[in-house]
């Protein structure tokens, strides 16, 4: 099981990041979220979603999803975002196993860009 992101549907609203942060910190915060819409290339209107899993960093780009195994040297030309770095220090996605709503990012995404894949 894992989280699946449709980056083309995403509207870059940051709600998933908030929901994940809430799951970690029991308050409203973005600090510890392991799902983060990347939005640093604002002038180019290029955005998608990063997800930290146990062994990999998933980069959901509009053109397709890329899975980088953590520890392996990432292709420097394809560096996802400035936010990729702090992401690696965060806890990996646990599918919100202790939350009554299940995966909070799935629940909150207003445009249903996030789902759980078997």
């Amino acid at each position: 099981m894992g989280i699946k992101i449709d980056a083309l549907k995403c509207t870059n609203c940051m709600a998933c990041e908030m929901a994940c942060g809430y799951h970690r910190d029991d308050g409203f915060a973005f600090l510890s979220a392991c799902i983060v819409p990347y939005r640093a290339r604002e002038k180019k209107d290029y955005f998608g979603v990063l997800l930290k899993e146990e062994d990999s960093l998933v980069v959901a780009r509009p053109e397709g999803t890329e899975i980088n195994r953590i520890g392996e040297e990432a292709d420097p030309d394809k560096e996802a975002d400035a936010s990729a770095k702090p992401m690696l220090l965060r806890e990996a996605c646990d599918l919100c196993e202790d939350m009554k709503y299940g995966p909070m990012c799935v629940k909150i995404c207003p445009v249903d860009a996030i789902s759980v894949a078997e």
Partner: protein
Amino acid sequence: MEYLSNDKILVVDLAKGDVEEEELSEELVAERIGGAGVNARLYKEYADDDPIVLGVGLLTGSMYPASAASVLTAKSPVTGKLCHCPVTLKVGIEIKYAGFDYIVIKGRSDKPVYLWIHDGVADIADAADVWGKDVWETTDAWRKGVGDDLLQTMVIGPAGEKGLDCAQVCYNYWTGPDRFGIGKLFGQRNLKGMAFRGMGLLEAAEPEDFVDEAFELLEAVKGNAFMSKKGLGPICAALGEADAEEWLSPVVHRHSADYFTPYATNTFAFIDEDPAAVTETAKPEPGVLISDIPALLAFKKLGLSALDAAKAMQACARQGVDPMAAATAGEKGGKTSIDDILSQVAATTEPAAMEGNGVFSPWCPRKPIFGDFGASDTDAWWERRQAVAAIFGIQPVFAVMCPQLTEESMISLSNIGGELELDQETLDTVIGDIAG
């Protein structure tokens, strides 16, 4: 104020070059709720200094849907009234997460400065290197300076520096709701802008109850038929400008939303890149983010193609000129070619004619979009809706779109999250006070 807040008011004296902090008392919140309600009170308190007040809504940056906005309150040089200008995109929430709820700016600096607000710290920083630069260059310089592309900014361009009534405070790189000439007020104070970044944590008194009710509300919001649509085209169509959607479509790249706003109220137009491109463009500045529906339609009315309208919007964003003012000046001057309009942008001085009572920005369409609110007097309904959005921190365009975001639900979530006992009567009083 312990919850949904940083418990901090910042008072900045640009003349003396110092900053002071005060607590945000629970009594003030109980009486004035938040956002424009508290801003107006702070304005009164410091009225002798004619300050600019920036405030977050009580629900801003929470899990209440569309809680994206903050609000700038100042005496408008255009309307002469105390006006409340929404702070949109992701700038509105960054203010709260950067550690402050309210910022009172008084006095005039004797040299160009900007406010740099980060993780609960406020600095008055030198802006000599960006004075004279346009909005894009300034945001780029500030982001580069701290090495963080997620820095959120409010910036004036040359129009604000010159102290023109058409000057707008822009957000990051884009034009926004300022039809009030707040950009001029920044310029007069030698204030180039503000930059925000922070990783705060906002506690809710009853977080689980808050989330339960917010999710219930979100489900109801998601039931709206408009949720299958995105961007400005369908909004234009819903406002009776059916052909605008088709007109715009050749330049549309993607649509994006302000923080947790269920409908994407921003459309990015590509100017010198193929709008159908999905991979990252190599062009550093391929287009412009548009949120100003009335201005877009005004450029269309001048006979411009969507591509040319996007060019005009981009020029306004760089210069820090209200695009509605530029379109109005273009119309008055009988300008119809894009070259004439582009040279018009930098020459614009006059503000756009103000629709409504001059307190809330007609950047937000002045009638219901998609949703049925059962409003009989649309003007009064719109003013009230804008007031409520400015108090709680709701994205103003979504506020006139989504009937499920009721005043009752905002009061209820504020009480659950803030351990407050707000009621309709309090809200009515605050609305009556700020709505002019």
